């Protein structure tokens, strides 16, 4: 029975792929007809996803019961000694990821039915969603680095497709392009890293690489700095995909995509792929302490930077995006101190509560659109909101749960996982802990600021929105709302919110510090889960100190938020009044975009222009003109084909004579 279950594990990614293929082919060949089906497509894709979910849960449960990890490989390509295998591996880590991805994906799909109900691209959207889920599941199941890379690119491609889903919006197109370019940097590093490890070890499987690296390092055959370099190159992939500094800039812009996408891809699953890869590579990284240091500090700095920027964002989705960056920083930091279980734990809790927060923000935007019209700038600006608790009770309640979870208030899920990370960070390096601790305070502040601006107080409409302060901001847009008050979203949208609220509250309980089922599950594979709560040997004092300090700073943040935003919002930011420089610094995202523009984009563009000018000036003689030379050669050579058949015959004869001479002489 169980063996049969594992033999059908390949269906998990294949079923969504099937759905995407069917709908996609339909859209391409019978476009009109297929898009008219709408719900039909959605139901098909939902059904297939449901089967995937069931299978994933079954696999997960079997792993919980202590089934051995299952690996299945087939030879994909052989070329002499080079042997490329593809396949799938179901172990505890991947089965856990399967469940996370499939549940969030299914709920997001249900939600999308409501959110995208009036969109022209409804069916296309579902096809993309399904394609993305398939790629993500394939990534999770990958047994080796090459397959990871293939699916890595696939999820990336889906991400660009979905960011640019509304391709008629300039901002969406530009955001997709930015995501593409930034991710290219990371993927290039990842590819180099993979090739490097293959060159050094001749292995592509994770454990294989780890064993060989250990051997080679021990034997001194591989210098430490080279291995460290490869490790950092591989880490570049997660840096881009999981939006770590300095490659985080694409994620906030990616919010131009439809909100369900932001929830699924840019909060819960794809951006976590980087963390997942780090967890998979952990056996290798364990031998590379310097790389781990880099990982840890990158994560810590990202957590801090994301939180500081999130403090002042007015766009609800951008705010959540920076919060995601910050939380991903936590996870990466946990990986950096070589405690993957803690990072994965936070990945799981974050997936649920952040998906819920994003879907909640989508619900808010959906409600706002009824008032301010279909303009993303206005509908997503928190200065236009306020008092939504009255109009959207379910959304408000679930959003509050999510907020409490991310702020780390016990017993919500985020408390346990964040506390775990802070704990392990403290054991590794108190500096890391300090950054994480400060960030936790800021997190509490900006999340409650967001909550209060959106749901607290009175509904403001366009009173303080964009344009209220600076008219030219919106000079060209006109308002065309069709209702005076926002409304609660339909059931298909609220239901996923309510369902996601459950894990957001409860899922943290599997990783209690004194009865850590989660850590046990991940770190001791192959044995049935039997955790005896180690209450006796547990250091309550230390726990209370750590937890108390982080809850304490969280409470301080919340209090500050209430003081600043609890009353009537006057349109003037309290922070902006008190710390104008810091406020501007944060609002402008540390001026990083401008910095990149000035230091990379502009010089590159200038270089390109100069190269172009040189092109024109000195046509011959420069090596980088090969392209032009090739073109010119082609232009010249093509006139050899003068259209006269007798010339052709002559050429043939001359060639024959020439060949006789050459081969006769040689």
């Amino acid at each position, binding site marked *: 029975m169980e063996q049969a279950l594992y033999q059908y594990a390949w269906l998990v990614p294949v079923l969504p792929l099937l759905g995407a293929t069917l709908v996609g082919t339909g859209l391409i060949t019978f476009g009109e007809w297929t898009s008219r089906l709408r719900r039909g497509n959605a139901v098909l894709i939902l059904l297939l996803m449901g089967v995937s979910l069931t299978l994933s849960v079954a696999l997960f449960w079997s792993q919980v019961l202590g089934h051995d990890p299952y690996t299945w490989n087939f030879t994909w390509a052989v070329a002499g000694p080079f042997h490329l295998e593809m396949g799938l591996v179901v172990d505890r880590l991947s089965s856990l990821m399967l469940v996370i991805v499939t549940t969030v994906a299914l709920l997001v799909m249900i939600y999308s039915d409501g959110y995208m109900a009036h969109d022209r691209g409804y069916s296309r959207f579902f096809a993309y969603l399904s394609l993305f889920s398939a790629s993500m599941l394939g990534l999770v199941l990958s047994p080796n680095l090459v397959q990871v890379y293939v699916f890595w690119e696939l999820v990336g491609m889906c991400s660009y497709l979905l960011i640019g889903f509304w391709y008629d919006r300039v901002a969406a197109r530009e955001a997709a392009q930015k995501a593409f370019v930034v991710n290219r940097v990371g993927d290039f590093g990842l590819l180099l890293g993979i090739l490097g490890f293959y060159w050094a070890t001749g292995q592509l499987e994770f454990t294989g690489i780890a064993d060989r690296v250990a051997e080679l390092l021990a034997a001194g055959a591989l210098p430490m700095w080279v291995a460290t370099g490869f490790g950092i190159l591989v880490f570049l992939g997660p840096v881009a995909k999981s939006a770590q500094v300095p490659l985080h800039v694409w994620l906030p812009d990616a919010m131009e995509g439809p909100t369900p996408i932001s929830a699924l891809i840019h909060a819960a699953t794809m951006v976590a792929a980087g963390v997942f890869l780090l967890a998979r590579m952990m056996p290798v990284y364990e031998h590379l302490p310097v790389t781990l240091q880099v990982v840890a500090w990158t994560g810590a700095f990202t957590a801090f930077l994301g939180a500081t920027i999130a403090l002042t964002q007015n766009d609800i989705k951008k705010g959540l995006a920076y919060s995601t960056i910050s939380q991903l920083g936590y996870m990466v930091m946990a990986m950096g101190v070589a405690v993957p279980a803690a990072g994965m734990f936070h990945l799981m809790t974050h997936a649920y509560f952040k998906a819920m927060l994003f879907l909640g923000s989508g619900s808010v935007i959906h409600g706002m659109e009824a008032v301010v019209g279909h303009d993303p700038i206005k509908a997503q600006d928190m200065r236009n909101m306020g008092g939504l608790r009255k109009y959207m009770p379910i959304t408000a309640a679930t959003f509050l749960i999510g907020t409490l979870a991310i702020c780390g208030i016990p017993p919500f899920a985020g408390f346990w996982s964040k506390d775990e990370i802070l704990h392990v960070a403290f054991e590794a390096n108190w500096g890391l802990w300090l950054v994480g601790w400060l960030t936790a305070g800021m997190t509490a502040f900006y999340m409650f600021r967001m909550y209060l601006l959106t749901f607290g107080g009175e509904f403001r409409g366009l009173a303080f929105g964009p344009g209220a302060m600076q008219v030219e901001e919106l000079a060209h847009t006109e308002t065309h709302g069709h209702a005076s008050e926002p409304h609660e979203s339909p059931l298909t949208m609220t239901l996923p919110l309510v369902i996601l609220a459950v894990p957001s509250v409860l899922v943290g309980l599997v990783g209690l510090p004194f009865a850590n089922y989660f850590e046990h599950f991940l770190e001791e594979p192959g044995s049935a889960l039997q955790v005896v709560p180690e209450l006796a040997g547990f250091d309550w004092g230390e726990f209370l100190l750590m937890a108390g300090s982080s809850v304490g700073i969280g409470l301080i943040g919340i209090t500050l938020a209430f003081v600043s935003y609890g009353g009537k919002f006057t349109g003037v930011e309290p922070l902006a009044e008190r710390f104008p420089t810091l406020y501007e610094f944060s609002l402008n995202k540390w001026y990083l975009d401008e910095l990149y523009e000035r230091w990379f984009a502009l010089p590159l563009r200038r270089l390109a222009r100069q190269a172009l000018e040189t092109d024109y000036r000195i046509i011959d003689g420069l090596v980088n003109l090969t392209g032009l030379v090739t073109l010119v050669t082609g232009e010249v050579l093509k006139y050899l084909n003068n259209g006269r058949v007798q010339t052709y*015959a002559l050429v043939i004869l001359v060639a024959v004579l020439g060949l006789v001479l050459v081969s006769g002489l040689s």
Partner: protein
Amino acid sequence: MPQLPNWINLVEKEPPEDLAMDVVSLAALNTGTIVPELLVIGTLLLVLLADLLSGRQASRWTPYLAVVGLIGAVVSLGFQWNMPVAEGFLGSFQADHLGILFRGLVALAGALSILMAIRYVNEAGSALGEYMTILLVATVGGMFLAGSDEMVMVFVALETLGLASYLLAGYMKRDVRSNEAALKYLLIGATSSAIFLYGLSLLYGLSGGETRLSAIAQQLARQDISQSLGVLMALVFVIAGIAFKLSAVPFHQWTPDVYEGSPTPVVAFLSVGSKAAGFALAIRLLVTVFPGATEQWQFVFESLAILSMVLGNVVALTQTSLKRLLAYSSIGQAGFLMIGLAIGTPEGYASILFYAFIYLFTNLGAFACVILFSLRAGTDEINEYAGLYQKDPLLTLGLSLCLLSLGGIPPLSGFFGKLYIFWAGWQAGAYTLVLVGLVTSVISIYYYIRVVRMIVVKEPQEMSLAVQNYPALTWDMAGLPELRATLIACVVVTAVAGLLANPLLTLANNAVTSTPFLQPQIQVAQK
């Protein structure tokens, strides 16, 4: 005793083995070896008869008959694969595994080109029945060519393929460009086959009157003249005839003109079927007859491969007509394929088979798109494709995938084809060839992407006139559903064949290792 020139030092021939051989029964001819070809011949006679008896009425179902016949031939080739390797017609025809795969490729190319052509030929107002008959004749010629092991048979098969192709090229007989293409093709084809034939006659004389390829090789070896000037002349003459079929530079000059002028479905067949047959002939003839001059013919093919890769890909950059671009691209692709020939290792031959299989579907898919576009927009100019994605998603997707696959972009199948060829080349130590191949395939990506960009990237206001006046997408005209089915099938294979590379490559490797005439080469490679 007539006086012989001193450069022929004839060794006494062995007496005829068995006088009973003179009277042969049908069973001894082993007719079973050509059952697939007989099926195609039967089909073409049926198509011809049906067309004669009920005229244009019949053209509703004869295409299906033709396709069923060709598929039947492929199926019977499958049966033949599992039977012990047999010699037919006293060794004139070899049903070995290498031949079987190449014959299958030719038959597949024929079937797909018929499906693509239905709408095109109807639109041009020409008769479909004759078109199919001639195409089937060409297919039979190609299939025989891939298996024949005797000079007379090689020549007749070559000319069957050739003459049918000339007719097909000129099939649009009211179109001056089609006329001109046919005339050029015929003249160059006739010249090349005359040179080829001259080479055969030299071989006949040098071997002291043998026409079977293996017997010639034995005689040449026994007289120890494998390196003599006469044999080298024969070698070069023979290569000239083959290189014409492969459109290898400098025997390529007819290719762009013929591709541009001929009806597009015909071009599709020529670019794939005719070339596959050419490669089959090249491998068999060179390996069997010239084992003593292996270095020389490998050197010749190395030069041809480099010239083809460079010239084909470089000149393709400057083309403005998509058909002409594909012509130069096919010259370049033939160059890549010739790497497998020039290195002469078993892996090389296997990678030729694998690449030819992928190239078949990719190139036919691209040509199906060209046909579809010219049916709807009436032009082949690349500029006229601008902005097409807004009007025709299927065509956009199909053409983009096929072109990117031709350019060798992973994970499309063309990438894997190139990968195996280059890998085989690298293993064999042909570094120059592989490097030239890599550089030129980078160049090739540039012009393929240019077309894709033209289709996909243009803003709505940059749309070309042809695309602005693009007709509504309808599929209910006779022949269009078949065209669409072919297109989708080709695109699907193009997209996924790379992922199924391993079984295909295993098949190709098995074919090479189990083919008798390649055994000496395999033994050399094993050392």
